[in-house]
C-alpha cells in the first residue's frame, strides 16, 4: 500500500490531537447510537407496517415474528424475503468502526460505505417489489413473484440510522469541518426533500408518460397533451369552448391584472393620502391568511346566484331575469380578485413604502410638479413591485382550487380538471398526471419569468438607513382614480365578509330566509351530555379535531425544518448550497393540486404506503409550508450579525449549542411567523389535501367542500366562521406563547452586516 506510511504519520499526528478534539467523542457516541438504532430496526422491530392500528396497539406482539410482524432479519432468513438481507450486510460494515479510533482513515470510510450501500439496498428492496409483485423484470427474475407490504417502524428506524451513519461518516472524513450536527441536519433534510418532494413530483412526471400497466408510451402522452380539450381554441372561432390550458392562462391573466390594479389603488390610498380609514385598510392584509376556501364563492352565490339576494332585487326593480351568469369565468374571476387583492395590496404596500421619500423630494426640489414626480420617479420605482404582484396573482390563480370548483360551471381550469380526473367518474390518473405536468410548467414558467425579469431589482430603494422626509402626495387625478376603484371594492369585500358572518346564523340566506337560527351551528358542533361524559355529536367535530391535531403537529415540524434549513443556508458554506436552496424552495412553486396527485401516485404503494393516514396530511403540510419558514428564517438571519455565531464558536460552543443558545432565541419573531403561518395554512389549505383526506382523517376544508357540493351552504359558512375565529385565537395564542425577543432598548449587535 503506497499511501500507508503517509497515512500512518497522519494517523499518529491526529492521535496526538485526539483528546483535545471534543468533536471526536461526539462522533463516536453518535455512531454507537445510530448502530444500536439501526440494528434495533433491522433485527428486532417489525419491518413492515402492522396494520391500521399501528405499532403502539401492540396487537402484533401476539403473532410475532410471523410473516407480517417479523423484523427484516427474520423476514430474510425465515420468510423467504431474501432481498432484505443485503441491508443487514451493509449495516454490519460500520460495526467495525466501534473498535477504531475516530481519526483512523477507515473510520469515516466504513461509515460512508455502510450508510450509502444500506440506503441503496433499502431503496432497491423497497421500490423493487410492491404489493402487486416485482416492479422490474430483473427483480422478478431473482425473486420470482414476490410481494411485500409497505415499510413499517423497523424500516423507518433502520433507514434513519443509515442516513445518520452516512452523515457521521462524511463529517468524520473532515467535511463540514468535522461537524456531525451540520452534516447530519443537511443529510436528513436532503433525504426528506428527496423523499417527499422530488420523488413524488418525479413520479407524476413519469406517470404522465406511462400507460395503465406502467409501460412507457410517449405516444400516449403526446396524444393526451395535444388533445382538443387541453389546447383547443374553439372559443375564438366560436361555437365550442376553449381548451383547459387556455382557460387557465386567460383566467390567470385577468385575475392578476384586476387584483394588482386594485391592490395598487389600496396601497396608494394607505400610504399616500390622508384618507380617514386608511388604518382600517391594513386589516385587509390579514384576510387572505384566515379565509377558508369556498366561503368567498359561497357568499357570491348568496348574493348573485340564481336565487341570490341581489339577483332578487334586480328582478324586482329592473325586471332583469334570473340567470346563471355567475357560474363560469365571471364568477371565478370575481372570487379570485376578491381573494387575491389583499395579497397584491400586501406586496405593493411594501413596495410603495420602500420608495425612499428623499428620491421624490429630490425630484420636487428640482422643480417637478406632483404629477410629473409621480410619472417620472414614483411610477418607475413601483414597476418591479407591480410586476411581482402580477406574477403572484397569476400563479395564485393557477393554483386556486376552491373557487373554480364552486363557481366554475362549464369553464374548466387545470386544477379542477386534475381533481375530476382522479375523483370523478372517469378515473384517469394518466390524464391527471399530464394536466399536472402542464400546470407545473405554467407555474415554474411564471417563476422563471419573474427571476429573469425582476432579478434583484425589486427592493433596491430599501436602504436600511433611516430615511427622513415626507412622501409625496398623489396627483389629484390618480387620487380620485384610486378612490373610485378601491372604495367600492372595499365595500364589496365588507359585504362579502358580512354575509359570511351572518350566513351561519340565519335559516337560508341563499333563498332569502333571514330568520335567526342556531340550527347550522348545532348540526356542526353539537355537544351532548351523556352518561359517559361529553359526546361530540355535531357532524363537524371529527374533521375539526383532525384539523387541529394535524395543524398542531405540522406547525412545529415545519418551523423546525424550515428554520434549520435557513440556518444552514445562511451560516454554513458547503458545496451545492445553491442547489440545496433551490430544492428547498421548489415545493412552494408547485401547485397544491399537483402535490396532491403526486402524493397519491407515490404513496399509495410500498414502500411508503401512507395514503389514508393522518401522517400523509402532516407530511404534506410540512413540506409545502417549509419554504415559508426558510424564507422567514433567512430574512431574520440576515439581520442578525454573523459574529454572534462566531463569538459563540470561539468560546467553545459547537454548532448545535450555538444554534440553540444564541440563534434560536434571536429568531423568535421568525419562529412565531412560521408557526402561525403553517398552523393557519393547514386550516385553510384545500388543493393538495382534498386528494389525501380519508373517511377517518378528514380535514375541515375538505368537509366544508363536501357540504358545498351537497348544497348545504349555511352549514359550510357556519363551519368557516368557526375556523376564522379559531385561527384568530391561535394567532394570538402562539404570539403569546413564544413571546417577544428580550433585547432591551437598543440592539447594537443585531444589525445589518459589519464593515
Amino acid at each position, binding site marked *: 500500500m503506497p499511501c500507508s506510511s503517509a497515512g500512518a504519520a497522519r494517523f499518529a*499526528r491526529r492521535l496526538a*490531537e485526539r483528546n*483535545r*478534539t*471534543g*468533536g471526536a467523542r461526539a462522533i463516536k457516541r453518535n455512531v454507537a447510537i445510530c448502530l444500536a438504532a439501526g440494528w434495533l430496526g433491522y433485527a428486532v422491530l417489525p419491518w413492515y407496517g402492522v396494520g391500521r392500528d399501528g405499532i403502539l396497539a401492540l396487537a402484533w406482539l401476539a403473532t410475532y415474528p410471523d410473516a407480517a410482524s417479523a423484523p427484516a432479519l427474520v423476514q430474510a432468513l425465515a420468510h423467504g424475503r431474501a432481498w432484505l438481507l443485503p441491508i443487514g450486510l451493509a449495516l454490519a460494515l460500520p460495526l467495525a468502526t466501534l473498535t477504531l479510533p475516530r481519526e483512523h482513515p477507515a473510520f469515516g470510510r466504513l461509515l460512508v460505505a455502510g450508510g450509502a450501500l444500506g440506503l441503496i439496498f433499502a431503496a432497491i428492496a423497497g421500490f423493487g417489489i410492491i404489493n402487486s409483485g416485482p416492479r422490474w423484470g430483473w427483480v422478478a427474475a431473482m425473486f420470482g413473484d414476490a410481494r411485500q407490504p409497505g415499510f413499517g417502524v423497523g424500516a423507518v428506524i433502520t433507514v434513519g440510522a443509515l442516513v445518520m451513519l452516512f452523515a457521521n461518516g462524511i463529517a468524520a472524513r*473532515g467535511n463540514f*469541518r*468535522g*461537524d456531525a450536527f451540520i452534516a447530519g441536519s443537511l443529510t436528513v433534510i436532503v433525504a426528506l426533500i428527496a423523499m417527499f418532494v422530488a420523488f413524488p413530483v418525479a413520479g407524476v412526471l413519469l406517470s404522465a408518460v406511462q400507460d395503465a400497466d406502467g409501460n412507457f408510451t410517449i405516444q400516449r402522452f403526446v396524444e393526451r397533451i395535444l388533445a382538443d380539450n387541453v389546447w383547443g381554441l374553439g372559443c375564438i372561432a366560436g361555437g365550442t369552448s376553449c381548451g383547459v390550458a387556455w382557460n387557465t392562462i386567460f383566467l390567470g391573466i385577468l385575475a392578476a391584472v384586476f387584483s394588482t390594479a386594485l391592490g395598487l389603488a389600496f396601497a396608494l390610498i394607505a400610504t399616500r393620502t390622508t384618507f380617514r380609514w386608511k388604518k382600517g385598510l391594513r386589516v385587509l392584509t390579514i384576510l387572505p391568511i384566515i379565509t377558508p376556501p369556498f366561503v368567498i364563492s359561497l357568499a357570491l352565490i348568496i348574493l348573485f346566484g340564481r336565487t341570490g339576494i341581489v339577483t332578487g332585487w334586480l328582478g324586482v326593480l329592473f325586471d332583469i331575469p334570473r340567470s346563471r351568469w355567475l357560474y363560469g369565468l365571471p364568477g371565478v374571476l370575481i372570487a379570485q380578485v376578491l381573494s387575491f387583492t389583499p395579497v397584491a395590496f400586501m406586496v405593493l404596500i411594501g413596495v410603495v413604502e420602500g420608495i425612499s421619500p428623499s428620491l421624490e423630494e429630490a425630484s420636487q426640489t428640482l422643480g417637478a410638479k406632483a404629477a410629473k414626480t409621480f410619472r417620472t420617479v414614483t411610477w418607475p420605482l413601483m414597476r418591479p413591485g407591480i410586476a411581482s404582484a402580477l406574477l403572484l396573482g397569476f400563479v395564485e390563480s393557477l393554483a386556486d382550487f376552491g373557487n373554480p370548483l364552486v363557481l366554475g360551471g362549464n369553464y374548466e381550469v387545470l386544477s379542477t380538471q386534475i381533481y375530476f380526473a382522479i375523483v370523478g367518474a372517469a378515473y384517469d390518473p394518466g390524464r391527471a398526471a399530464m394536466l399536472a405536468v402542464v400546470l407545473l410548467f405554467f407555474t415554474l414558467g411564471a417563476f422563471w419569468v419573474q427571476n429573469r425579469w425582476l432579478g434583484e431589482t425589486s427592493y433596491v430603494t430599501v436602504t436600511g438607513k433611516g430615511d427622513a422626509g415626507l412622501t409625496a402626495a398623489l396627483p389629484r387625478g390618480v387620487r380620485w382614480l384610486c378612490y373610485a376603484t378601491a372604495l367600492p371594492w372595499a365595500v364589496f369585500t365588507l359585504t362579502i365578509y358580512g354575509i359570511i358572518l351572518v350566513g351561519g346564523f340565519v335559516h337560508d340566506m341563499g333563498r332569502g330566509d333571514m330568520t335567526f337560527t342556531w340550527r347550522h351551528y348545532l348540526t356542526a358542533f353539537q355537544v351532548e351530555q351523556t352518561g359517559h361524559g361529553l359526546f361530540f355529536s355535531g357532524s363537524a367535530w371529527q374533521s375539526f379535531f383532525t384539523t387541529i391535531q394535524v395543524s398542531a403537529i405540522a406547525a412545529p415540524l415545519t418551523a423546525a425544518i424550515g428554520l434549520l434549513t435557513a440556518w444552514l443556508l445562511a451560516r454554513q458554506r458547503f458545496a451545492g448550497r445553491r442547489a440545496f436552496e433551490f430544492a428547498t424552495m421548489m415545493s412552494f412553486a408547485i401547485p397544491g393540486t399537483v402535490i396532491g396527485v403526486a402524493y397519491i401516485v407515490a404513496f399509495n404503494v410500498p414502500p411508503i404506503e401512507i395514503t389514508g393516514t393522518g401522517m400523509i396530511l402532516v407530511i404534506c403540510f410540512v413540506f409545502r409550508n417549509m419554504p415559508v419558514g426558510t424564507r422567514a428564517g433567512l430574512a431574520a438571519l440576515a439581520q442578525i*450579525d454573523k*459574529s*454572534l455565531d*462566531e*463569538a*459563540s*464558536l*470561539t*468560546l*467553545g*460552543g*459547537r454548532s448545535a*449549542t450555538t444554534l440553540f*443558545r*444564541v440563534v434560536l*432565541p*434571536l429568531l423568535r419573531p421568525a419562529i412565531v411567523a412560521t408557526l402561525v403561518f403553517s398552523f393557519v395554512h393547514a386550516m385553510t389549505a384545500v388543493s393538495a389535501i382534498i386528494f389525501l383526506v380519508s373517511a377517518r382523517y378528514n380535514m375541515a376544508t375538505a368537509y366544508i367542500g363536501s357540504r358545498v357540493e351537497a348544497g348545504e351552504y349555511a352549514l359550510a359558512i357556519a363551519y368557516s366562521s368557526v375556523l376564522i375565529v379559531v385561527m384568530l385565537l391561535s394567532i394570538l395564542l402562539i404570539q403569546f406563547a413564544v413571546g417577544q*425577543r*428580550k*433585547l*432591551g*432598548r*437598543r*440592539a*447594537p*449587535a*443585531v*444589525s445589518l452586516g*459589519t*464593515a
Partner: protein
Amino acid sequence: MPKSGPSSVEFSAVTKRYGTVTAVDAVSFTIEPGTLVTLLGPSGCGKTTTLRLIAGLEIASEGTISIGGRDVTRLSAADRSVSMVFQSYALFPHMSVLDNVAYGPTVSGRRKADARAMAHEKLDLLGLKGFEGRMPSELSGGQQQRVAVARALVLEPEVLLFDEPLSNLDAKLRRRVREDIRELQQRLNLTVGYVTHDQQEALAVSDRIIVMSNARIAQSGPPRELYEAPANPFVADFIGDANLLDAELLSVEGARAQVRFGPVVLDLPHRGAGTGGIKLSIRPEAFLLSATRPNRPCIAGTIAKAAYLGAHMEYSVTTEGGELFVVDRDVMRPIAVGSTVWIDLADHGVTVVPV
C-alpha cells in the same frame, strides 16, 4: 495568567482563498508568547481573514498554523483555545452581562456556580462590578467593549484577538481604551493579535507590527523600525504619510552613501541600494521651512496650500522635485500661501527606500 502560560502563534506559508479571490497569500509570521502583534494595512488587504484564520473561524486553504507549538490547522474554532473580541463586540443581545461572560464556561460544561464565579472574576478585573444584571443594550459603547473583553478572557485563552476594537468608539475614548488594552495585555502577559487600519494606533500599542498589502506581508518589525526604516515605498507611505521622492545615489562607502536630492547632498545609510536613481522617504516633519535663504544649498519652493491644525501647520509646497507634504510645529508664525520658502532637511526622518 493563562492556564499554560501564553502561547506563540506561527503561520507558515498560509493561504486562504475564497473562490478566485486570494484573501491571504502564502503568509508566514510568528507571534511570540506574551507579545502584542498588530496586523496593519488598508481595507481589504486580508487582516481580518488572517485573524479569523488564527481563531479557526476560517480554515486555511494551504499552509500550517500552530498555536503553542501544536498544529491546529484543521481544528475548528470551538476546539482552539483562542478568543476574539469582535469589531461589533457581538454581545449576545438576549443575555445579561453576567450570562454573556459566563457563556464560555457554561457551554464547555462547567457547573453554573463555577461559571458565574469565573465570570464575576473577569468582570471585576475589567471594572464592571455592578453591571452584571444589565442587558448589553443598556451599556455605553466603552462598557460593551469591556464586557466583550471580559467574555473573551474568561476561559483564559492561549491567544486573544482583537479586530479593530476601537472603530466603534468615539475619538475621545479611543486613546484610553487602547491604553487599557495594552495595560491589560502586559499585566496578564497575554499573547494578543490585534487588527487595525490606523497606523497611529498600531504604533502606540504594538510590540511588533505586521504591515499587510494585497494579501501579503509588506514588512514586519517593531514600530520604530517600521517608522524609521521602511522596507518599501508602500510601508513608508502607509506609516507616517512619508513623501516618496526621486533621488540619486552618488557613491557608497561602507554602510553609508552619498545621496543627492535636488541641490542637497545627504549622507545616509544606503540600506542595500546601489548607485543610480533611488527613492527617498522623507517624513513630513523632516522638512525645515525658512522664509529666508540659508547659506547652505537647499530646496526652493512655493506654498500652495496651508492648513492650521492647532498643534501644527500642514503645508503643501510646490518644488522642482514635486509637491511636498510638510508638517511644521511653528503655528505662531504661519507662512502665507504663495510665499517662497527655503527647505532644509532634518537629520532624522529621511531614509533610502529599497525599491
